């Protein structure tokens, strides 16, 4: 039996070679990434129609330990064809080490790629004028989660500006409740939530995206007055008495995934534990199961409030980027498909999908969940205006973006507003 199948395969492949000439039938392309569970299944599903059409077999293997594994694979030369990193900084790093093939060398139409994903996104994967990163899924961070029913019942309205948000927070405190959920503990990455706050404030103060880009590339020092101003705004949220659930100590102790749970919990008077939670779109998967069903209706989002009327409506986000390890013909086919408008269709229609595709022409009505559609529209809108910015801590050198920036934000939360200068100075000196 084994033998006959084997024989059949040999004959079939001979026929394929004979008839197809350069056909890629049966070629295999191997992709690894950090996606697991539903997301991994959705990603794999995207290739079903592609495999049917071209005969190229694409297999994806996701792992929780992807970033370590791919490091080791690169060191040993045993790389996959394509790797999907959860942040562009790692793609640039791999390109710097000479492991990746640039998109130009693969023959990707760069002008089309730019117009589909904005030149900012394309620029994220740039090393010495060549581009190595292929854009993929995004998530949105410039959002504040709230419950419209709770707001309505108490006559609160959605704050459009920072000052309105502070006024609302004061009102909530005066009414004997707590305005903000805030938890930034995260095993091995504690502090990233505060860096997200900083980034959102940076995008809305100073000269907006221009200052932000200079801050990321270290053209302005980390202890610049603009950054200090942003840290002062953040400290206002963290350190004002009564603003945050459980007080300052709770900010560093609360696991970010549990941080919003107080919003779903009513106290003896029927009041929720908090009213507003600024957190990225992926937080819904950390909610209690009962709350997850109400994402987009019972619990939904308003945009992070504006701080300066003169600036465009910026959006902060993060996302995956893929890098390519070889220029086999089959790999090139897959890369072109992954950058095309059809690519994400299958995943978007999955009922459990909460990942968002960055392609500006992607039909957002395909998304199965309402909330995903709203977030996707915001992202593509900001991309079109070139006001979408990537998570700064992912783009900074890892010593800062995954080291001192996180650590000093934790210290700032504990030590109080008097620590702002020390924190920023420490981060500045740690910049390599």
């Amino acid at each position: 039996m084994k033998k006959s199948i084997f024989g059949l395969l040999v004959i079939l492949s001979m026929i394929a070679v004979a008839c197809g000439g350069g056909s890629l039938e049966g070629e295999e392309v191997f992709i690894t990434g950090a996606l697991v569970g539903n997301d991994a299944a959705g990603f794999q599903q995207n290739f079903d129609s592609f495999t049917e059409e071209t005969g190229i077999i694409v297999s994806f293997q996701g792992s929780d330990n992807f970033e370590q594994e791919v490091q080791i694979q690169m060191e040993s030369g045993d790389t996959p064809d394509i790797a999907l990193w959860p942040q562009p900084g790692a793609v640039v790093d791999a390109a710097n080490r000479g492991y990746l093939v640039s998109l130009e060398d693969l023959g990707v139409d760069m002008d089309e790629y730019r117009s589909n994903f904005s030149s900012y996104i394309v620029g994220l994967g740039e090393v010495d004028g060549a581009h190595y990163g292929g854009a993929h899924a995004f998530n949105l961070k410039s959002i504040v989660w709230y419950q419209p029913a709770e707001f309505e019942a108490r006559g609160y309205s959605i704050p459009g500006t920072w000052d309105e948000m502070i006024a609302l927070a004061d009102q909530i405190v005066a009414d004997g409740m707590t305005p903000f959920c805030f938890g930034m503990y995260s095993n091995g990455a504690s502090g990233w939530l505060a860096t997200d706050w900083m980034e959102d404030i940076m995008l809305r103060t100073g000269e907006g995206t221009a200052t932000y880009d200079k801050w990321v590339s270290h053209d302005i020092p980390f202890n610049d007055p603009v950054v200090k101003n942003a840290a002062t705004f953040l400290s206002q949220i963290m350190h004002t008495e009564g603003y945050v659930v459980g007080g300052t100590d709770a900010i560093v102790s609360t696991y970010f995934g549990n941080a919003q749970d107080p919003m779903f919990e009513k106290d003896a008077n029927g009041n929720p534990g908090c009213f507003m939670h600024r957190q990225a779109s992926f937080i819904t998967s950390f909610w209690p199961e009962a709350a997850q069903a109400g994402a987009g209706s019972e619990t939904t989002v308003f945009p992070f409030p504006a701080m300066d009327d003169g600036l465009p409506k910026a959006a902060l986000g993060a996302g995956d980027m893929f890098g390519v390890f070889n220029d086999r013909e089959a790999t090139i086919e897959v890369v072109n498909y992954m950058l095309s408008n059809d690519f994400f269709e299958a995943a978007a229609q999955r009922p459990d999908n909460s990942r968002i595709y960055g392609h500006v022409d992607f039909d957002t009505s395909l998304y199965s969940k309402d909330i995903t559609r709203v977030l996707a529209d915001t992202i593509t809108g900001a991309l079109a205006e070139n006001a979408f910015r990537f998570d700064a801590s992912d783009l900074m050198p890892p010593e800062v973006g995954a080291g001192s920036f996180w650590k000093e934000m934790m210290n700032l939360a504990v030590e109080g507003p008097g620590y702002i200068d020390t924190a920023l100075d420490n981060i500045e000196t740690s910049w390599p």
Partner: protein
Amino acid sequence: MKNLTQREKIFNFGISLLALGAFPLVWFLSQAILFRELTEIVSRNVLVVIGIIVGSSFVFLLFNGMERLIRLAPRERRDSLEARMFAGPSLFMIGLFLFYPAIRTIYLSFKDRYGKEFNGIENYSWAFSDTEMLVTIRNQIVWLVFVVFFTLFIGLIVGWLSDRLNKGEAFFKSIVFMPMAISAVGATAIFKFIYEYRPPPLTQIGIVNGIRVSAGEKCSNNRIIDGELNDYADSSCNRAIGWLQQRDLSNLQIGETLESGGWLSNLLVNFPLNTVLLLIIMIWAYTGFAAVVFSAGIKAIPADIMEAGQIDGASEIKIFISIVIPYIKSTIVVVGTYMVVTVLKAFDIIYVSTRGDLETNLLAVKMLDEFSKYRNIGRSSTVAVIIFVCVVPIIVGNALRERENNSL
């Protein structure tokens, strides 16, 4: 042996080269290539069967083949060749998987973040000046002192006391030994639940915080009594504490009155609470092991020595200190050595609990952080070398002591 001709010498050398070098190498490579090719063709189940049959006969045929080649050598050379034959393959394996990586790690520790350019001792000066590294080294020392001392101390007491039991000794010892059966990851998961913190007003699911917030008249851990929710929002209630996030005692009641001054209060002001709470996991997991080994050692003490002590009127404590401890001294040293090495390699407890955040890091986790989080091969190798350097003297000392004992 004395009057070997040149020709015989060359012949002998050829035989040893063939038997100890070329044959094992060819044998090993052919196996490797065979299996690499087979995985492409044969299905998994067949491969497993072939693996068991071919793989297990591998060693037999390897030694058999070498033996045959050695028989070609003159009789008086055979003994030494055969000795080498048995040591050879394992030395080869140790060299390939232990010595080569160790030497390469030392080499890489003098290179930059990409492992390309040499940068002198920069990595080492970083290792002993960077604040995070210094905290990591401090933690490693705290772990060494506390874990080794308490596992030995509690282990000795449990071993001694269980030996005095009239019945139920096996049961008692197996309970103390039980944590050894759980992996460090499992043990950490258990303790994570014990220390768990939830933001108010959520129900505290960690037992420590659960007890804390329930203390007091108006306080209850969100229990519903007669349809009414009893929470811990009242200001008289204890606050819940994120135990693994406490770098000092400042959030505890005793912490509030602390002031730096004398050495004791200085020590308490800087008391790394989360680190100590984490190392308790390791003490819990390894005490049983120490106790069982000590108990075996205590059982080997001849009864007449103990009786002599009792007749001379020595108290239990006196017997313990003057007879038991000196008698099982070498056991204590062996267990102590084992514990020191285990603590230096300790990884899983930190990796699955805090992942090194808030000043709880240990060297083994730091080594991985430098490699994958900060993508710095040079520094990562440097941390590895530091661990290596700490372990080596202990192993060498142990080996020397062993030799001394044997020569006695």
